């Protein structure tokens, strides 16, 4: 990650005060200890739990070797969840990132009303998952906003329970994700683009380049590192973070149509009390996250 590299460089270049800095690292030990205890420790524990047969949160566990993984790779639910996750990511990321970049670029042009627009685009970043889910639960329900609207314009035939129909539930989950993600990422792109020296843009404009060309041929390459970072973050947030929203919107249904890998981990642990299986799926999710991060980094590097 570029910013990580940057930070480490900054640290070595800009030395501390002349004189002793001994003992200063001790100041960060309480924070480090806290972080290791509540984050890194549990992460390591996930790998261990995935090798246990553990059928109840308050019950006893016994070693099970790799049998949870055998069960996982032999179960249809796992492949279905994998496919759902792939569809979700495969649509959300390629749609979200370019649109968000365009929104961000548009904001930096400071068009009329851009302050208002910025506030609106920020809104999903302020609202919790449960509030978002409640709004869409109401809007997409059988008696909600969308159906009411369709009836009002005479398209009664198209009304349906959007979240409870097998053919639309996943699309709705993706749309809510995009609703949340595009505006917020757009504002982030705008913040990054604002720190770019605008002379280049002006020069290109004088040469007669269109905004579209300036956006993709100049602004995009300059900020490609940040595009990569944000793509990576959105990838991780979608991959791991979708469980809460889906749990509230559809509980993974109807059937299994909206059960992503992260929701499967939740369901197996808390609905079916199979902690070993759940954490084996957790390990797979973790590996996918890591592989995806490396892949996105490679893709960005290759563009340079």
């Amino acid at each position, binding site marked *: 990650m570029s*910013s*990580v590299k940057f*930070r*480490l460089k*900054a*640290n*070595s270049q800009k030395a*501390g*005060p002349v004189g002793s*800095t001994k*003992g*200063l*690292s001790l*100041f*960060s*030990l309480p*924070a*480090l200890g*806290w*972080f290791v205890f*509540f*984050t*890194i*420790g549990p992460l390591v*524990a*996930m790998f261990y739990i995935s090798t246990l047969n553990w059928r109840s*949160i308050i019950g006893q566990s016994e070693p099970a070797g790799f049998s949870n993984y055998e069960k996982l790779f032999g179960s249809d639910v796992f492949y279905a969840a994998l496919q759902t996750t792939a569809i979700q990511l495969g649509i959300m990321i390629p749609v979200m990132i370019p649109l968000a970049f365009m929104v961000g670029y548009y904001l930096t042009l400071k*068009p009329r009303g851009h302050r208002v627009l910025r506030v*609106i*685009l920020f*809104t999903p970043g*302020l609202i919790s998952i*449960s*509030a978002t*889910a*409640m*709004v869409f639960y*109401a809007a997409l*329900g059988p*008696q909600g*906003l969308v159906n009411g609207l369709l009836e*009002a314009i005479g398209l009664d035939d198209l009304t349906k329970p959007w979240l409870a129909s097998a053919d639309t539930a996943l699309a709705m989950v993706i749309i809510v994700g995009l*609703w949340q993600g*595009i*505006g917020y990422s757009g*504002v*982030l792109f705008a*913040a*990054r683009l604002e720190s770019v020296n605008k002379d280049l843009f002006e020069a290109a404009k004088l040469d007669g380049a269109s905004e*579209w060309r300036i956006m993709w041929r100049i602004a995009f390459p300059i900020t490609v590192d940040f595009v990569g970072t944000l793509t990576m*973050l959105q990838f*991780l947030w979608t991959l791991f973070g979708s*469980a809460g929203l889906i749990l509230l919107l559809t509980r993974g249904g109807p059937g299994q149509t909206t059960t992503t890998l992260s929701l499967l981990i939740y369901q197996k642990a808390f609905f079916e009390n199979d*902690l070993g299986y*759940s*954490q084996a799926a957790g390990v797979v*999710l*973790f590996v996918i*996250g890591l592989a995806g*991060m490396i892949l996105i980094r490679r893709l960005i590097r290759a563009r340079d």
Partner: protein
Amino acid sequence: MKFSQLSGGRLGAGALVWAYGLLLAIPIYFLVVSSLKGNLDIFNDPFGLPKEWLFENYSEAWERAVLGKALVNSAFVSIAAEIITLALVIPASYGLARSRSRLSLLIERIFALGFLIPAFATLVPVLLLSIQLGLFQRREFLTMFMVASTLSLSVILLTQFMRTIPAELEESAMIDGLNRFRIMWHIYLPLSLPGVSMIVILNFLAYWNEFLFSLVLVGSNADNRTVQVALPTLIDQTKTEFGPLLAATVITLIPVYILYIVLNRRLENALTAGAVKG
């Protein structure tokens, strides 16, 4: 704006962005008007103003979801987590900003990489940890976990901020005989207040809005649950009263929007810095 600047592409882009803005605004409008309606009115006229203004939706939501208690619980968790986070992050950032040792470099690296660990991956082990410690269904454990979940980003951001404070200040203070703790408290803390307020804002949003861990670690018992967990309890599998449900949603948003109105620019900067620099 000069007319020549209004190229077709730009107009098209503008129309698209505003259309998207509208898509964002419509559900929010729907949320607010529907919170004052009954089910029938919501369905028959989703965009119209309420035929009857049902302000009692708010009192009904308040009572049925026991929101008073939930708000107190959320406030408890958010405030306690803020205090612990600052107590850990300020010294850590000061140390990391000024130390040149290998250990510091390593610790900084752990936090930088730790930022990429998705909290969700640790959900089940963290639950088991809370049971092991005898703190299951306690707000205190949720608080401690939330601190950990925001620690790495907070340390990264504040360390960057403290690095911009000239080291000469510290040197002259040491010549004056101040020890490290006093330097941190009397020099670094006051000078890094903008950075501190940034992480306080960023973390408040994270704490107040957290849902999944609050659900799993504390549960939906009306005495302990946070607002985000209380909210979905108003969904009824057979027949949901949408008016009170959306009224409760509005109530949970009020603290965040008050913050946004008061801190507007600062809050935007905090949110963007959180992702841009992290």
